[in-house]
């Protein structure tokens, strides 16, 4: 990127991350370890502060009251948040909730966007993405039955980011009649909805939850997608998410490397700083190379997303998937090498490195499991020459 472009971009990032926001992020950082220990979600108050400080509305289009940051700008904001703020769950939530809101804004369904999306601007309403079951999308067991002006939903979604915080869920269910995947908005307070928080290895402040839906009867006007386009809708949501989440990851990787470099510079072994040993320098170099390659891929993907130059949004895109894959691998390498260099210090709580490992492993299965990404990319490579 040209120097002037980078300067303009960082100027936009700094407009979002002003001094007030930096102070807020510092508080989130300082309270992170305690939340992690208790598996306590980011509070509604802190999310409301995120809304008031315009973090949550940064990527919402201007026509709906947001700052209208494009993918590149929003991605770079998240990258900075990843670098500055110690809480991985914060980055996850402030990227996910606006992404769902944007999907609703794009629907142009006035009833649904007024009911569910506009609340992102003042932090009054948060909607979680309810898709994952213990099976593939062609075998979703959660189903919907049409009943005149109502629909009745039964089923279970096993892992929702922000599920225990959210007011509503953008839920993907199989229509019993057409066998197509529909998308329906279910409120957390609808009769028949049960929310069960999940204790996870990492990202413990993300409010992960399972939801069960037992004869949830709601008005049919809460259907967001009912024409068989549910799976395409999901892919349209998930594909850019792979890059947006990776943006935050790149910042976290930089933070980790900086911590490690600081440690090896000040830690003395056999009268010399660890930093003077060739093996340490080599490990840091390996980490830096992994970071730089992940960063290039993320920035390229963000640029392509911004210019709408990626392929059909409805299919899993090779580029976004490769970017996500590379970022996860880079993150795992960097935390592993940091562990090796920092030794016991890294293993102990409250040193954040052990939490970074736990957080990072969430990306192995989340946002498109690494394995599935490889399989899909491999099959497409068999079918078509590069």
């Amino acid at each position, binding site marked *: 990127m040209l120097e002037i472009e980078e300067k303009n971009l960082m100027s936009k990032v700094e407009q979002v991350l002003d001094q007030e926001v930096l102070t807020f992020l510092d508080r989130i950082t300082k309270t992170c370890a305690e939340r992690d220990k208790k598996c306590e979600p980011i509070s509604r108050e802190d999310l409301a502060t995120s809304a008031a400080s315009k973090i949550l509305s940064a990527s919402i289009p201007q026509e709906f009251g947001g700052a209208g940051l494009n993918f590149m700008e929003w991605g770079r904001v998240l990258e900075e948040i990843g670098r500055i703020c110690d809480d991985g769950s914060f980055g996850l939530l402030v990227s996910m909730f606006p992404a769902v809101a944007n999907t609703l804004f794009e629907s142009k369904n006035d009833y649904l966007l007024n009911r569910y999306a506009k609340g992102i601007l003042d932090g009054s309403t948060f909607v979680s*993405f309810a*898709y*994952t079951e213990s099976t*593939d*999308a*062609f075998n979703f067991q959660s189903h919907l039955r049409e009943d005149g002006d109502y629909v009745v939903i039964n089923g279970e979604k096993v892992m929702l980011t922000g599920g225990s915080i959210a007011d509503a869920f953008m839920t993907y269910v199989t229509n019993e009649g*057409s*066998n*197509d995947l529909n998308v329906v908005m279910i409120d957390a307070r609808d009769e028949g909805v049960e929310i069960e928080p999940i204790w996870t290895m990492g990202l413990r402040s993300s409010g992960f939850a399972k939801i069960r839906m037992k004869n949830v009867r709601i008005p049919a006007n809460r259907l967001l997608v009912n*024409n*068989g*386009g549910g*799976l*395409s809708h*999901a*892919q349209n*949501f*998930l594909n850019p*998410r792979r890059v947006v989440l990776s943006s935050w990851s790149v910042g976290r990787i930089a933070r980790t490397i900086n911590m490690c470099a600081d440690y090896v510079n000040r830690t003395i072994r056999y009268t010399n700083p660890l930093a003077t040993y060739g093996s340490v320098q080599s490990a840091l170099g390996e980490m830096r190379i992994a970071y730089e390659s992940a960063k290039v891929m993320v920035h390229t993907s963000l640029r392509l997303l911004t210019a709408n130059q990626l392929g*059909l949004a*409805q*299919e*899993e895109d090779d580029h976004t*998937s490769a970017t996500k894959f590379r970022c996860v691998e880079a993150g795992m390498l960097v935390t592993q090498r940091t562990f090796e260099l920092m030794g016991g210090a890294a293993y102990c709580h409250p040193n954040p490195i052990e939490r970074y490992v736990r957080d990072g492993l969430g990306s192995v299965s*989340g*946002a*498109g*499991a690494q394995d*599935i*990404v490889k*399989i*899909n990319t491999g*099959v*497409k490579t*068999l*079918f*078509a*020459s590069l």
Partner: protein
Amino acid sequence: MVIVISGALLKFVNYQREHKLEASTPWTGIKELTTKFPDLKNALFDESGELRKFNVVYINKEKASANTLNLEVQNDTKVEIITAIAGG
């Protein structure tokens, strides 16, 4: 022509990967396959009979378009279909 099915779609065709068919165009070949395997129809086509957008079709190693799906092809044509989806 030979139609090759991969990934999540395999279960709709009894996990048989390759299917030899007599068809003049890839589109008619795919339609014939869904006649033979009715469960495949809903996975491939939406209510209006259009190919669902998350299904990717390749014809002789080239990504297919709405046009090329309806072009007449040779007997030795290979049509490959993958449903490219990944989770959240």
